[in-house]
């Protein structure tokens, strides 16, 4: 299997690559459109600020490439948020794959949301074998709203989408590469889809 991790200069791709390796999958790190198109699976990670990350994607004309991929794509953290329609962070238009808005947490809770929280209402094969209310590791200040594309919910002040899916596109707000055994199970589910 040709597994490609998209590196567009926003975030720690190394941890994702290491996690795949621990599961026995060698991943290529690339920002080349042709390499992405030819991949069997693509992981779209991301940490940092949304508008500058989106600018980096557009600068490399990767926004259109990602949207038109037909193989399974997994967006992680900011990657997932950029797959949404719009994010309040830097008032950024996203890729619009998920018809969902991304909003800032209200100051009624501590922001960023850092640490281990539970996922529930689990849907789709991404969560095969994962128990309801399993703990995953999250670090973020903005959240994707609940929608009919939601495949996992987390509660932090509000109920929000900690996972989304539409056709071949999967998104997770949490970091499967940092979420212990549960995270490895979820990542493995994606890699063996």
């Amino acid at each position, binding site marked *: 299997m040709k597994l490609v991790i998209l590196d567009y200069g926003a975030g*720690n791709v*190394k*941890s994702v690559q*290491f*996690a795949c*390796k*621990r599961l026995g999958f060698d991943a290529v790190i690339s920002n080349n459109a042709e390499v992405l198109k030819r991949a069997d699976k693509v992981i779209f990670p991301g*940490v*940092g*600020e949304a508008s500058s990350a989106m600018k980096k994607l557009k600068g490399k004309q990767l926004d259109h490439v990602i949207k038109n991929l037909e193989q399974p794509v997994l967006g992680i953290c900011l990657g997932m948020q950029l797959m949404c329609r719009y994010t309040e962070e830097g008032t950024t238009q996203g890729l619009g794959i998920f018809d969902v808005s991304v909003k800032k947490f209200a*100051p009624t809770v*501590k*922001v*960023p*949301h*850092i*640490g*281990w*929280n*539970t996922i529930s209402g689990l849907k789709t094969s991404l969560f095969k074998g994962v128990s309801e209310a399993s*703990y995953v*590791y999250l*670090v*973020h*200040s903005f959240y994707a709203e609940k929608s009919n594309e939601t495949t996992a919910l987390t*509660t*932090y002040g509000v109920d929000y989408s900690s996972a989304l899916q539409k056709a071949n596109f999967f998104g997770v707000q949490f*970091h499967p*590469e*940092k*979420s*212990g*055994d549960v*995270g*490895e199970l979820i990542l493995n589910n994606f890699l063996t889809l």
Partner: protein
Amino acid sequence: MLAKRIIPCLDIKNGRTVKGVNFVNLIDAGNPVELAKRYAEKGADELVFLDISATQEGRQTTLTMVHDVAEQLNIPFTVGGGINSVNDVEALLKNGADKISINSSAVRNPNLIADIARQFGSQCVVVAMDAKCINNEWIIHLAGGTIPTRKELFHWAKEVELLGAGEILFTSMNHDGTKNGFANEALSQLSKTVNIPIIASGGAGTIQHFVDAFHIGKADAALAASVFHFEDIEIADLKQVLSTNNIEVRL
């Protein structure tokens, strides 16, 4: 619900863990990768590595160590000690660290916090604060509590929050090493002062101390070193007790 975090802290010198770690069946207690994995298995939610290397060569070895740990560890980890610039941060993150922790360099140059946050996001910036209570005032100290500054803990906390810090790691120099419990009053005041997570450090001796840090101190996470390294407290037992005290933990 968001769980309270338990964070063992490991001192690193020239790429090796120092301070006697006393695990049974651990072939090489100085090997940070082996120790990190063992802690992850024991139920640690996160790890902090504090680089106490005094030389440039020592720091270079730390980068290799960070890479090796990231390769093997499936929980997040923070690296602190000797970070003075955005370049230092970039090197650590590129090698797989999830967060970095800055202390004296932030006091000397507060804008470093903003520079790191802008480039890599607030989520990776932990500002560590060593404070000593003198005449009812919590004064920030540098160099392991030996050098007092003009900064006061709560003002400094507010300032770093505004500059873009993602978390505060507060060590009470009055409590550190005493095993008499955390500085719960100051912790709870800190929690009221800022709206970013607070990691409690300094003073852990018993399981009850952790219960108090969360209940009274309102901490979001608690960090300790020797009680874990010498197995005075097993993380699994600690989390069980926290759970029976209605404190949310990842079991």
